[in-house]
């Protein structure tokens, strides 16, 4: 399958990429191409110009900066999944990245592309939301910061404006006696998340939960933080029965979505099971240090 013809420009700096996007209305950023190229090939999308940012060195890399994890937009899923620092301190993110597609997809697909695409069934938004990620967005006017809670607006809709480029996402560490975990129920054919849950637990000196976080993806049009479940975990020992009880109200204030493959009720049911499992796994890992 061959896409409709388009022009192609390669940017070697962020500035050049922004300028190229500004010159041509409707121009789009090309990163790994693993969401965009399938759409173009099927002619579900058409673009006048692709601005390839792959060579923009300043957008790459996974590093720890003043204790925070900073993942460049061009970091590949594989680099995140394999990073020792991410696996240790931001485990749910490394696990989410290792669940994206297959090894070939993880060789090419980028973190920035995954977050910017805004697919409700994507893996990485759920993990970035768990860590209260702060996304840096560049435009001709300069840089701005957008918190993960404000970044996804609906299916395939994000806070990115026309011609803007996501440059990096920054995530603070969870702290001592804390750990995280990611659980995904993949669609058997596409591999995308029917439901995914990222959870984190921080324990006090007695082994009770001081803080819990739960992010749910795939089940609603944008990933969300399950505030009721997070509150219900505080003060309990995070064993499996306690976690199952805490997630009873996982969807408080939310409307799970159904489709041909999984009804809304089924998604909610699976999400509760996976949330309890992720919380218990994070709790056990936090206790083990």
């Amino acid at each position, binding site marked *: 399958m061959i896409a409709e013809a388009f*022009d192609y420009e390669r940017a070697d700096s962020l500035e050049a990429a922004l300028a190229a996007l500004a010159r041509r209305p409707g121009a789009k950023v090309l990163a790994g191409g693993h969401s965009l190229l*399938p759409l173009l090939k099927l002619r579900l999308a058409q673009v006048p110009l692709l601005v390839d940012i792959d060579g923009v060195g300043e957008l790459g890399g996974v590093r720890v900066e003043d204790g925070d994890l900073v993942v460049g937009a061009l970091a590949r899923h594989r680099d995140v999944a394999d990073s020792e620092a991410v696996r240790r301190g931001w485990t749910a993110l490394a696990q989410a990245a290792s669940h994206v597609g297959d090894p*070939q*997809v993880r060789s*090419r697909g980028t973190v920035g592309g995954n977050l910017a695409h805004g697919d409700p069934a994507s893996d990485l938004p759920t993990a970035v939301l768990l860590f209260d990620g702060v996304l840096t967005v560049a435009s001709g006017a300069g840089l701005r910061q957008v918190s993960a809670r404000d970044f996804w607006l609906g299916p395939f809709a994000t806070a990115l404006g026309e011609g803007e480029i996501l440059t990096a996402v920054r995530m603070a560490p969870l702290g001592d006696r804390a750990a995280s975990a990611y659980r995904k129920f993949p669609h058997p054919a596409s591999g995308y998340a029917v439901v995914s849950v990222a959870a984190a637990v921080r324990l006090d000196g007695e082994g009770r939960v001081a803080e819990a976080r739960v992010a749910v993806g795939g089940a609603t049009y944008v990933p969300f933080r399950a505030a009721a479940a997070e509150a219900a975990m505080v003060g309990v020992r995070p064993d499996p029965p306690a976690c199952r009880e805490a997630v009873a109200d996982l969807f408080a204030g939310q409307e799970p979505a159904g489709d041909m493959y999984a009804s809304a009720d089924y998604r909610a049911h699976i999400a509760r099971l996976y949330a309890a499992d992720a919380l218990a796994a994070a709790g056990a890992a936090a206790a083990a240090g």
Partner: protein
Amino acid sequence: MQYRVLMRVNGRPVERETEPRTLLVHLLRDELGLTGTHVGCDTSQCGACTVLMDGRAVKSCTVLAVQADGHEIVTVEGLADSVDAALRYGGLHPLQEAFARAHGLQCGFCTPGVLMAGADLLSRNPDPSEADVREALEGNLCRCTGYENIVAAVRLAAELLRERQQAGAGRPAAHAAGGGD
């Protein structure tokens, strides 16, 4: 629009004018005649089109030829030459040899892609478990074999590579030149 690309394919420099929408797999097959890289699905699912790009397995039906500009591509035709001659047997890469010995293929349509995904795995993991192999081949579909012999063949290849690398390391002065100590 035409775009000039310059890349290395199987160790040789290749320069071409191409439309930006040309897929890497089509440049390889139609322009360079490297038809060992197959197109199974054309929708990023089956892995038959897998090649190495800077050493990493990628699906060449989901990479534009222009994205490969400046990069190093290895296709199944270049697999054997990508390793030291001392590691080959009968001109074959240990993966190719192992697939023949362990019956890792039936119709062979998926095989080039599986070999390239296997090569990426072995470059990172010299002794993969069965689970490691199955995970590394998650992006490769085979309609014939049921995967058992494919997994066995990749593990046999790993064994052959390890043996020959050890034998090579033991040979006096074979690779010591320039080593310093």
